[in-house]
């Protein structure tokens, strides 16, 4: 399968004309945005190690350049800088960048770093102005996992198929690899390395090699204007190769043997429905995903399942104009279970999370947006423990505000 996608990549590269460097400047688009937010949580830290004191470590800036190289070939890329608590730290990275060869109206192919289709909103998650609330519903679009689910390097096929009176279907299938800088992902540092080092061991190196990333989606634009129905599937598998440094100050040969941690976000599927009518929007999605993280046969670490479960989540969200069309009020109910068979512990709040939120979005100008919202939360899943040294509180809340400028 990978060979087929590799062949697509080669064909796309061959399709780039030698005169691309001499593109007419009027054919090149330049867009960009800057977002800055403020997050303040009560009782528990959230997405930042000090959000209980309020944090401005919540921003994004992006520059997008694209050009129609030939009638069938379009190329483009986006550079993104972001900061979210301990992640990002405003280093610019290639968010996406690919060549897009549109063969005909029903079929096209892309090669490069491509945003992964998952649910209806994953592809646009780096652009604050595309959504009505500051964060996408966390049951399905976990901020902590953004690096694993954002984009993959590889090739994809896509297109639009007319269904006559029933509407049309957009399809995408993407095969590639997720390339992660381990040092930039807080949950790897805290979850995997921190988990091992709790036993007095020291991890002196850790690399990630993605074995496989596959994402596919079908979105039906139904005959009822404004109603979209979607199904998407995501599977990301990889291995962390690591080595311990020492044990009790002495480096025993067995300790120094390399260890591997298998990580799988497997069989994640999302069912989606969205209805847009003028300024009213109704959205709901449901997902299940198998999450496996396992340390494999090391003389000291042994074989250890760090995470094995099938998570479940869903949300419903409504947005309506308030007073003026530019001011929109959103209400969200978002539910997540780490293990769909246990539904969590309602005494401690472990293993689940229920988020009731209300938010405002004000489009001050066509290119200036302000958002503010309040989230009332029960439960501590997922990963809240990684941001807090103190015991977790079951009932907590946060407020977040963000402003975005774009061109």
């Amino acid at each position, binding site marked *: 399968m990978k060979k087929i996608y590799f062949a697509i990549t080669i064909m796309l590269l061959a399709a780039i004309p030698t005169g691309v460097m001499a593109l007419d400047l009027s054919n090149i688009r330049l867009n960009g945005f800057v977002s800055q937010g403020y997050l303040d949580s009560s009782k528990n830290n959230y997405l930042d190690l000090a959000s209980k004191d309020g944090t401005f470590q919540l921003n994004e800036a992006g520059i997008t350049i*694209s050009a129609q190289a030939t009638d*069938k070939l379009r190329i*483009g*890329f986006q550079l993104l800088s972001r900061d979210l608590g301990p992640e990002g730290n405003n280093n610019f990275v290639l968010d996406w960048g690919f060549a897009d060869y549109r063969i005909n109206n029903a079929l096209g192919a892309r090669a490069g770093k491509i945003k992964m289709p998952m649910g209806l909103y994953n592809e646009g998650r780096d652009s604050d102005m595309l959504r009505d609330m500051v964060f996408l519903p966390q049951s399905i679009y976990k901020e902590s996992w953004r690096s694993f689910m954002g984009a993959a390097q590889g090739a994809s096929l896509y297109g639009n198929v007319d269904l006559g009176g029933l509407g*049309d279907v957009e399809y995408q299938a993407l095969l590639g690899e997720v390339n992660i800088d381990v040092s930039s992902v807080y949950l790897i540092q805290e979850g995997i390395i921190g988990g091992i080092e709790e036993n007095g061991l020291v991890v002196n190196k850790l690399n990630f090699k993605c074995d496989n990333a596959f994402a596919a989606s079908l979105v039906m634009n139904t005959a009822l204007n*404004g109603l979209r129905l979607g199904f998407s599937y995501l599977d990301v598998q990889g291995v962390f190769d690591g080595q311990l440094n020492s044990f009790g100050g002495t480096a025993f040969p067995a300790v120094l043997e390399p260890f591997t941690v298998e990580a799988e976000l497997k069989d994640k599927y999302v069912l989606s429905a969205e209805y847009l009518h*003028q300024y009213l929007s109704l959205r709901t999605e449901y997902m299940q995903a198998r999450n496996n993280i396992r340390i494999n046969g090391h003389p000291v670490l042994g074989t250890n399942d760090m995470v094995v479960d099938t998570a479940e989540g869903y949300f419903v969200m409504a947005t309506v104009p308030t007073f003026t069309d530019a001011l929109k009020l959103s209400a969200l109910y978002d539910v997540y279970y780490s293990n769909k068979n246990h539904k969590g512990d309602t005494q401690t709040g472990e293993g689940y999370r229920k988020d009731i939120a209300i938010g405002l979005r004000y*489009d001050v100008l066509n290119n200036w947006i302000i958002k503010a919202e309040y989230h009332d939360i029960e439960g501590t899943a997922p990963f809240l423990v990684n941001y807090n040294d103190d015991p977790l509180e079951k009932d907590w809340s946060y407020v977040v505000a963000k402003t975005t400028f774009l061109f």
Partner: protein
Amino acid sequence: MKKTLSILTMTLIVMSQIASASEIIFITAKGNPIDSVSTSDLKKIYLGKIAYWDNGLLIRPFLQKDTATTNTLIEEYVEMSPYQYSQYWRKAVFTGKGKPPFEVRNEDLMKKMVGTLEGTIGYISADALDSSVKELKVD
């Protein structure tokens, strides 16, 4: 005086309603062999879902910036609100998945661009049609 103001206000309201529901006609370059386009294809063209004419030529759609005719196009043919249409193309641009229609400032520029380039499609108010472009019949 009050009566005059009332009549003036009513006239302005009626005129603005006429303008917002203004009839538009679709145009293309004279050299384009396409003579007609369906309403369903119009919607797909302005959403970027159809990229090529039946003869394989790249479709180059044009949009007028902030005009009543543009509102008519978006609301009656694309069947979205202007806000939804703007969000649709923002998503396409910032994820790399599409390129929005070219924007022009007025009808004269629309006719000039559509009449000059290959594979174009645009729209103007009915009374602005002249021999520099070809009218596309809507099925």
